[in-house]
């Protein structure tokens, strides 16, 4: 029986993009269901009652949730183009940095994107320090996965297009080529991979979306 694979996503979700990239890299056919976050479908709420979020992967009717969990499921289910190393120690290291990206980089970037004045100023060194730790993981490598993209490239891949969107929205430069030569090269190489290139959401739409999100956040903070 043929596999039926569906992905619930939004046009902009960087976490959903991880799932798309992994499926396409492994040549898995899937159907996309675009969600409107302001008006979530009953099906999404049924599949993800805990978090009510995208992405959700549904494989033969069974839902898998949380993008990094979904990536591991995809890796275990479709064996073409393995994304994780075989060695348990290297797998642990990969998982550590993927978690680090989500636990540290995402909130630190959000901390600058959604604030202003002193609070924003204080947030910038945190982003820089976090990026420096990530940059070190690229030493001697083209991609985090080595010669080809792997699990960690996919987990951190959102930085390759969103960081410059955030830079435009805030007017702050995070990722300059002089301070981050390895990350800058990685962004170019990563963005050049066809599966990555063909799936970027439209940049101008992203800028507008995050500009609006920032304004809304600042307005809410001002009323407190």
């Amino acid at each position: 029986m043929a596999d039926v694979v569906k992905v619930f996503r939004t046009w902009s979700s960087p976490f959903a993009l991880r799932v798309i990239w992994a499926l396409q890299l492994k040549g898995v056919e899937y159907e996309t269901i675009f969600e409107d976050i302001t008006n979530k479908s009953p099906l999404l709420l049924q599949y993800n009652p805990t978090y009510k979020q995208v992405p959700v992967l549904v494989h033969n009717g069974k839902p898998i949730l949380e993008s990094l969990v979904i990536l591991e499921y995809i890796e275990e289910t479709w064996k073409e183009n393995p994304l994780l190393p075989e060695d348990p120690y290297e797998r642990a290291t990969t998982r550590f940095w993927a978690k680090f990206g989500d636990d540290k980089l995402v909130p630190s970037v959000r901390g600058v994107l959604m604030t202003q004045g002193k609070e924003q100023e204080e947030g910038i060194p945190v982003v820089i320090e976090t990026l420096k730790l990530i940059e070190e993981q690229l030493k001697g490598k083209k991609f985090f996965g080595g010669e080809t993209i792997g699990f960690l490239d996919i987990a951190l891949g959102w930085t390759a297009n969103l960081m410059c969107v955030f830079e435009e929205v805030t007017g702050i430069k995070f990722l300059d080529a002089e301070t981050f030569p390895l990350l800058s090269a990685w962004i170019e190489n990563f963005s050049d991979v066809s599966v990555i290139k063909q799936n970027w959401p439209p940049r101008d739409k992203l800028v507008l979306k995050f500009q609006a999100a920032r304004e809304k956040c600042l307005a809410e903070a001002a009323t407190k």
Partner: protein
Amino acid sequence: MADEVILLDFWPSPFGMRVRVALAEKGIEYEYKEENLSDKSPLLLKMNPVKKQIPVLIHNGKPVCESLIIVRYIDEVWKHKSPLLPSDAYQRAHAMFWADYVDKKIYSLARQVWLSSGEEHEAGKNELMGCFKLLEGELGDKTYFGDDTFGIVDVALIPFYSWFYMFEQCGNMSIEAECPKLVAWGKRCMEKESVSKSLPDQHKVYDLLMDLKKKFLAK
């Protein structure tokens, strides 16, 4: 060559307890090193330079960090005994989802109940109970979260059982009254030697947490 396994830990840490339980489940011999978190050892700082946190598992000189990542590593390396994850990919994803849920939710709420006051405390307490109820729903009538087998979700959550007395005292709540199945599960897990030898006594934990709270509030 015999494996050399060292665990850098702090006795009341729920994250450290997860690793202790996993090592005990697999019958792995290891050296336990107690860390003083206000005076971290050079070894800890060398082995976990990024987060500077326990637990750290050092296996033949190589460090593995982050408790659930360590538990998965242990499961993958010592794979022939007491598997902590199901063999079916979908069930594995289901287990990892709930282990991740425990990771995302429980500690930060536990901290709120432990350290905060007023509205923040009230909110933390209510949300924590909400999480326990959700977890109890997921457990259902199963023996363990892993169904008949003690697995990664059990390993992720059981350390917080040693913090239940603190939750009840600080939160002025009865977990048994609101989540009887969860408490019954906790007691069942404690009947396993791998758990009872890895978790400290609830009153001992409470005393230490209250000491730390005094220091925290004094700052």
